[in-house]
């Protein structure tokens, strides 16, 4: 098991759908696979996928049309980016900074590295 990314399975599936929306594989206002379709495709329990869809609906990423299934919200990409920004700033950044401090990397060094990265 990969413990570094040990999020609950339903959240891992939510990340996957988020990736697909950001990359354009799932289009805005396009249809999302049904719970059973996705469950069979990724070999995960349907109740877990249903929980993912419930969560994404609460986050305003997908919405349901009665009898037709789930669709991507018009502003889904913005919502996902905002959510990921928050997650990064609150959780992962903290871990990253701790590592930097431990080995003594200065803010200037970090800035240089990041600027270099953005150039390529």
């Amino acid at each position: 098991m990969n413990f570094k990314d040990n999020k609950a399975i339903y959240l891992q599936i939510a990340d996957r759908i988020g990736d697909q929306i950001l990359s354009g594989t799932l289009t805005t206002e396009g249809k999302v696979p049904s719970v059973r379709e996705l469950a069979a495709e990724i070999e995960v329990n349907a109740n877990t996928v249903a929980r993912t869809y419930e969560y994404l609906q609460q986050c305003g990423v997908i919405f349901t049309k009665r009898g037709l299934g789930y669709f991507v919200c018009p502003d889904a990409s913005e919502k996902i980016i905002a959510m990921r920004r928050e997650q990064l700033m609150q959780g992962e950044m903290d871990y990253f900074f701790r590592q930097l401090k431990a080995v003594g990397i200065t803010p200037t060094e970090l800035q240089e590295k990041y600027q270099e990265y953005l150039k390529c």
Partner: protein
Amino acid sequence: MLSINDLTFSYNKHVGDLFHNLSFELNAGNVYGLLGKNGSGKTTLINLMCGLLTPKSGNVTLDDENVRARLPKTMSDIFLVPEEFDLPNLSLKRYASINAPFYPNFSMDDMQRYLDIFDMGGDIDVKLHSLSMGQKKKVLLAFAFATNTRVLIMDEPTNGLDIPSKSQFRKLVTTGMTDDKMMLISTHQVRDISEILDHVTILDQSKVLLNASIADVTSRLAFRPMREGDQPLFTQPSVMGSLVVVPADPDEETAVDLEMLFNATLQNPDAINQLFNAPKA
């Protein structure tokens, strides 16, 4: 749907009860994992659920009908895939045509679809005795799913399957499962099936130590590397340091590691029991 009611069972009156007043319920729409050590009574419990053994007292009911009565309407709604079995020396087609009439919802199209999932769709005229043990298991699983019984019980279904078929088996379950069915998978190979379960039932020394949904486990327990100040219910050394099972903080949701959950439950049954019986935070 399937209720185990005050079930007491013994193989031999001189050795005491294997199960004593066991009660729990299995509901439609769920895939249950029945976990337990060797000799913990998993197969006996399965046989009782299917009406193959007679309890000393109590009963197992499917929609309020005692399964031990073995009524046709009950038997046509339960399918058991045992760990070890023999298939007759017939062609697959003949086998299906002889056995399908016992199951009113059997679908030949479904069987073809499930055989395709196992890459065995090519030849329905194949002689069953010419198949390897693993192939026989695939054929029986495809037939079992195609009966569309509401109760499907599998004893160690992934034993003897090769590496690609573990994923195919998961596909079979996620494709074949519907809201009106209940599946129960008894296994030691927890890694093969962990993501297709939505409910775990842990049996030890003839007692149900834990019977909880994965969602419930996720909200009550965390599976992660050890942190300072942790009071773990279970610790396991690993290359990344100690991994622990601890009560989850609010908002902490980690993926359930069934192996660690099982070990934690066996090592610390009282603490787990207390945690799961407490009202949710």
